């Protein structure tokens, strides 16, 4: 089973565009990432720049509206993610528990959809849809 651990760092919605974690925090997180890797569960991970340098595209009234960051009114924003492959939801949650996160952080654990879970008509609609191939 594939899960995303979505990191929601406290206060990230109003972080400065050049905000950086402390070397200590980075070191602790690197160690955690190594652990995930050496347990053979880590598929991918990325960290995101603060929303101050991002944008939100909303679709009210059926047309896209672009708002530049930051978004101080948004309560929770993403700071990064890990994608892991584990045997159970409990195992994914156990890995999230072990994250050296700070007191105001939240990690949301979510299962990744697999095509086989979708009903047949949805699978049919996706058929032949080209994904990026090769590198």
């Amino acid at each position, binding site marked *: 089973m*594939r899960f995303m651990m979505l990191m929601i760092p406290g206060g990230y919605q109003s972080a400065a565009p050049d905000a950086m974690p402390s070397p200590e925090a980075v070191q602790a997180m690197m160690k955690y990432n190594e652990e995930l*890797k*050496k*347990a*053979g*569960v*880590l*598929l*991918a991970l990325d960290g995101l720049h603060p929303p101050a340098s991002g944008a939100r595209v909303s679709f009210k009234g059926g047309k896209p509206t672009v708002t530049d960051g930051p978004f101080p009114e948004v309560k929770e924003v993403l700071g990064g993610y890990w*994608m892991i*492959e*584990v*045997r*159970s*939801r*409990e*195992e994914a*949650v*156990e*890995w999230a528990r072990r994250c050296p996160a700070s007191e105001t952080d939240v990690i949301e654990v979510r299962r990744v959809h*697999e*095509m*086989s879970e979708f009903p*047949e008509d949805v699978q049919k609609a*996706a*058929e*032949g*849809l*080209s*994904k*990026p*191939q*090769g*590198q």
Partner: protein
Amino acid sequence: MTAVAVIEAVWRIEQPKLAARLARYLRDVGLAEEIAQDAFLQAMERWPRDGVPRNPAAWLTQVAKNRALDRLRRTTLIDAKHRELAVGLAELERATPDIEAALDENIDDDLLRLIFTACHPVLPAEQRAALTLRLLGGLSTAEIARAFLAPEATVAQRIVRAKRTLRDAAIPFETPRGKERRERLAAVLEVVYLIFNEGYVATAGPDWLRADLCGEALRLGRLLAALTPQEPEAQGLLALMELHASRFAARTDKAGAPILLLDQDRSRWDWTLIRRGLDGLNRAMTLTPTPGPYLLQAMIAACHARASTAADTDWIAIAAYYQALALAAPSPIVELNRAVAVGMAFGPAQGLAIADALRGESRLQGSHLLSTVRGDLLEKLGQFAQARAEFRHAAELTGNERERALLLARANAPAPA
């Protein structure tokens, strides 16, 4: 979440490290496995009542240490083995004041030693596989038995025999160096790939655990690749497995019938695994000028992964890699695959020449593969009568019903006007 599921999740994460650590102190993989198992049973008893401890690793190590001491007290210190054990335990005792630091120290080396010992060539491959899944996958005997379609008693027996053999042969708990390392690493990779293939052939079976062996093999492959970043074959095997696994969802139809690689809907391939496989392959190729068998197979799998459509496949490269593979790891199956690739790259006549040269090969007698390939190449050459005869012959030889139906259909197909 049930308490048992939580304990199993914690166990799965902690078990390999606990076994590795215990094996270092006890210098006996079998004993380490038994004591780790004792600790797990105790956790199953205590944690549902008291809750999962804040540091489960430390808790399990402490319990395991006490269990080891209990056992020692019940044994007479007469032989060298037990004296060694006593030394190990004294070390363990000294390590405990700062148990958290002790847990992390050298754990990578210990895990690697554990893999090398569990996969020692002194053991038959099936024993190596069972012991590895037990020690590094944290699977129970019952789970391993279900996955391998073997009676539980048989698997239990395999594990007992493996532990006894390691003990009797006094296999040291260490990472081999120098010339021996290459051979021993090959024994490890063989086991991981065996586990993967055992799962891979279980197409859409009724038992998820069987197909899940692929997941176990991938996990072991990732662990091994992370612990041996400089070994091109360990990286190559992981890339190979990830590229194969990327086609999981596409390789059967709704009725569970297999879909051949070239007929698969490539949009159903798993892009995350393809990207990981290709990245891993690129890294592995920088490690050696002479790719070994796993790396070469990964290079072949990558040619398929890179092609957006079956028609875009670089068959010339695939034919060249099969030629290199035939030199690195000669086998009639590799040669037969080369015949297919050469047929696609340079025309059916050239492919057929290679396939024909295999007709006297004793290791292909009784297999439908040679006739299937020859039938396919003959058909492309327009020699329909001969092609049909080959398909009929192949249909007689295959043990797979679905395949037989497919071959008979080709054998009875009318010749094109």
